């Protein structure tokens, strides 16, 4: 673990450096237009000559103005510190110091990223729990009922190969039309995106006990629920957690996509609004918030996984 710290930090530093360097050619055209308006002389001076030049060539020929690339308002590629500032502004400052923030009013400000993250997180979490529970239930049914196994499992496997998230906008719009709004439509999307991977993973897991172990249970005259509870479910745990990690990532994407058609809060709504109004730092900040949420959700599952496996006596973790 410790051997990896230095290389990882180096890779992150290189990524950051590449990001800063990329800002130069990405923003140079807008920077030069602005500088020209402010009275600076630019090489080449005629706007028509610049139009056909590549961004990289422009950046190389005008090094004097390069610094402005990192402080552009509405930049095509905002610099990392601009994104960090936006993130700080819309989380800590908005909630802590503004008159709409949680400190002043006791409720989250609807302009803060914390609020939008909470909207997304709550829908994702509720849907994820429902979807996972249904998936586990269906998997138990499939393992115990041959007709269900043969009928349903092939479709559950096929569902993994199709872009099922494309249903998300339709689900939201249709449920809105019948008057169901807010959390529920997004939770439904999040649930069905969790449901299929968990079902497939859990069926595989519940089937890991081999004939020898099942025979042993039979010699102890264990009932079907006992076999399930004492042999199949513990054996399925590693598979369950692997599929939960896939499911939670998918359901977060589903919630974000579900927030696109109806602009009522959430990180997806925030990204789309940012892309409509050219607020690139807002998109980047929302993107980092989404990454943070994904990391948080996966971290939570890993933590539960470790505790469960440790209590089950799996020493490796």
């Amino acid at each position, binding site marked *: 673990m410790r051997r990896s710290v230095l290389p990882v930090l180096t890779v992150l530093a290189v990524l950051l450096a590449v990001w800063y360097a990329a800002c130069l050619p990405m923003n140079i055209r807008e920077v030069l237009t602005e500088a020209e308006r402010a009275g600076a002389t630019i090489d080449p001076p005629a706007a028509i000559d610049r139009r056909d030049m590549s961004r990289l060539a422009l950046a190389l020929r005008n090094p004097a103005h390069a610094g402005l690339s990192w402080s552009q308002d509405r930049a095509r590629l905002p610099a990392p510190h601009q994104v960090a500032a936006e993130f700080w502004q819309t989380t800590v400052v908005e909630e802590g110091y503004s008159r709409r923030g949680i400190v002043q009013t006791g409720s989250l400000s609807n302009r803060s990223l914390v609020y939008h993250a909470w909207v997304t997180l709550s829908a994702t979490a509720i849907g994820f729990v429902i979807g996972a529970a249904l998936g586990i239930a269906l998997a138990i049914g499939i393992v115990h009922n041959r007709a269900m196994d043969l009928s349903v499992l092939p479709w559950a496997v096929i569902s993994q190969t199709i872009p099922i998230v494309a249903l998300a906008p339709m689900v939201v719009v249709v449920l809105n039309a019948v008057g169901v709004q807010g959390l529920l439509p997004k939770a439904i999307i999040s649930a069905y995106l969790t449901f299929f991977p968990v079902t497939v993973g859990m069926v595989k897991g519940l089937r890991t006990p081999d004939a020898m172990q099942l025979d042993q249970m039979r010699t102890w005259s264990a009932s079907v629920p006992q076999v399930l509870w004492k042999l199949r479910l513990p054996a399925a745990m590693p598979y369950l957690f692997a599929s939960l990690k896939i499911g939670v990532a998918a359901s977060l994407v589903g919630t974000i996509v579900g927030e696109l058609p109806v602009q009522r809060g959430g990180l997806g709504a925030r990204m789309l609004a940012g892309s409509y109004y050219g607020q690139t730092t807002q*998109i980047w900040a929302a993107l980092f918030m989404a990454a943070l949420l994904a990391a948080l959700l996966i971290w939570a599952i890993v933590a539960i996984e470790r505790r469960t496996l440790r209590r089950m006596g799996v020493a490796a973790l």
Partner: protein
Amino acid sequence: MTHVVAAGLIWAALWALNIRLSRGPVGQAARIAVPLIFGATILIVWELMVIGLDVPPVLLPRPRQIGAALAANPALLWGDFVQTVLRGALSGLAMGVAAAIVVAILVDRFDWLRRGLMPVASFLAALPIVGTAPILVMWFGFGWQSKAAVVVLMVFFPMLVNTVAGLADTTSMQRDLMRTYGARYGQTLVKLRLPAAMPFIFNGLKIGATLALIGSIVAEFFGSPTQGLGFRISASNGQLALDMVWAAIVVGSVAGSAAYAILTAIEARVTFWHPSQRG
């Protein structure tokens, strides 16, 4: 009301048929028939329930209406298929996979790179990368190029993680044998390690194919020409023409399953030596 009762009866009858078919030793024919009967049951019950309960077609169209929408607009949907699947998803998949394999070989060669890059890559693989779509649409325009860019980013990390794991999947015995043959690094790579990595690479490709479709469809929600499956879904959604929405989803699903089937067929030919293929 009669429709609802009929739906219940048909459900019960076909489910009873499935229970019968799956009793005792199950042959190859039943293995294919049972899921098909189940699929047909769902479609029939869906159709009858929508008629019986008078569900308006703007909420849930009947399967026959979806079929009619598919049959009535083959040219339109073919155009969407070409735009989203062939131009956006496929080109992005090809670029992302090629880049990931090249980087994976470098990572495999230099241990320092593995320790630095792999933790970052496996973290990024779990993130909702599709969120970069609004930014990439802004940079590369509304055409297929921005969709391909989203797909490259989405496919790259899972593919990299899989390929690196695959390249490491040789035993010391096999590597020693290559050394006794006096094989150079390049020879070992081409003759031993890349073939050994193939099962992992195909696993990554299968994950990537689905991700590519998702990426190119979702990216179209942020801006697209007046063509493409994602455009069709969001535009028909706005007109409450849900039969077209479903038709587009059917096209996307068939494309996804077909891609998976093709990859599985190629995998069976390439990795014929692997225990999972010898069965």
